[in-house]
């Protein structure tokens, strides 16, 4: 079976649930304490699409903590971005949209998937504010988390096809 490696960068404000998303649904992860020293957490997840396995190396970047130069260095060579906001906190969505604009200018060709996390805390099926996103997920219940990574892999796959 063909196996393709891809670098994925996970972005989002503090406490939107990025780490929780990663923690329970990836195959392997580096020691968190060690990596927090340099503001990054790296994990791996494999997604199978037809006869191709995508080996996703996920860089969880603590964007709030680092300078522009380091941020750029971490984002270099990325094949897809996973942008996460807290579906119960509007300000986290706006932060992601702002981030998206910057990414579109620097990485126009690279796929971006927007995820509204913590859907288990929503009163209805959607956030209470206007938001344009690809998927709602819950790191707590696991709902749609696999789909988020699958969606990402499909976009990469279509891009290559």
């Amino acid at each position, binding site marked *: 079976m*063909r*196996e393709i*490696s891809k*670098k994925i960068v996970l972005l989002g404000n503090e406490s939107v649930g990025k780490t929780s998303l990663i923690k329970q649904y990836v195959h392997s992860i580096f020691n968190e304490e060690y990596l927090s020293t*340099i503001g990054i957490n790296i994990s791996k997840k494999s997604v199978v699409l037809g006869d191709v396995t995508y080996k996703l190396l996920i860089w969880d970047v603590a964007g709030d903590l680092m300078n522009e130069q*380091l941020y750029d260095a971490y984002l*270099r060579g990325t094949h897809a971005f996973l942008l996460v906001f807290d579906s119960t906190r509007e300000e986290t969505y706006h932060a992601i949209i702002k981030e998206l604009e910057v990414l579109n200018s620097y990485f126009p060709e690279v796929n971006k998937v927007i995820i509204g996390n913590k859907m288990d805390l929503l009163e209805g099926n959607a956030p209470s504010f206007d938001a344009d996103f690809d998927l709602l997920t819950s790191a707590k219940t696991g709902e749609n988390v696999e789909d988020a990574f699958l969606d990402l892999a499909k976009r990469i796959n279509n891009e290559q096809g």
Partner: protein
Amino acid sequence: MDTKSQFEELRKIILADDREENKERNERLLERIDVLEKQLNDPDEFVKVLNNSKDQVVDMLGPHVGKLIRKFIRSEMERLNEEINKRRKALFSFDFLKKNKTKEANGQLEQVFIIHKDSGLVIGEYGNEDTIEPDLIASMLTAIKSFVQSAFGDGDSDLESLEYGDYTILLFNFEQFYFALITEGIISKEMKSLYFDQCLELADESIGSLSFKEIDNELTEQVNEHIQKTFFPSTDNARNK
């Protein structure tokens, strides 16, 4: 009477008393020797004699015992000195130094990674032992490199090595990728230079012409083989088959 007879007669007259005296003295001496012999043969008696003649024994043996002790100490010191010299010579001999220098400087190459510079993805990897999660290690090394370069670098410089315990990770940077050589032990400058030459040769002749637009298992297997042939020629390539 001739002269000889006269002389003999005169000698008898003169020495008669002396002879008598000597005879008596010899008899007394023999008696004394008999007594001493008995005392010497009887341990209890001998101890008594020694106890009664301590001063005489000390006076008689003292100078000899002192000499013996001095002689013993001198002999032991010479022996010790010889032993020290022998060990010193062995310790600092050329062979010893050569043997130990070789051992110290003979660091071992454990694993070689070729990592895509921007993405941190593994282009190829080969080593004596399988490493758990080479993908994560490669990404992590790339993140550390970026962090160090951003925090301390002036843009032109790059991280060249990382040390952890007995391990040293040598990093050789090329345009699209970098080599990470994991070594154990002390690596001499000559060895480092040799490793760099091998990386350069591999980059020029085999890896440099490859496309890294997509890093898949076909590409990594090809690169792994090149790494194995260059750095680990004596091992088989079973890992990739």
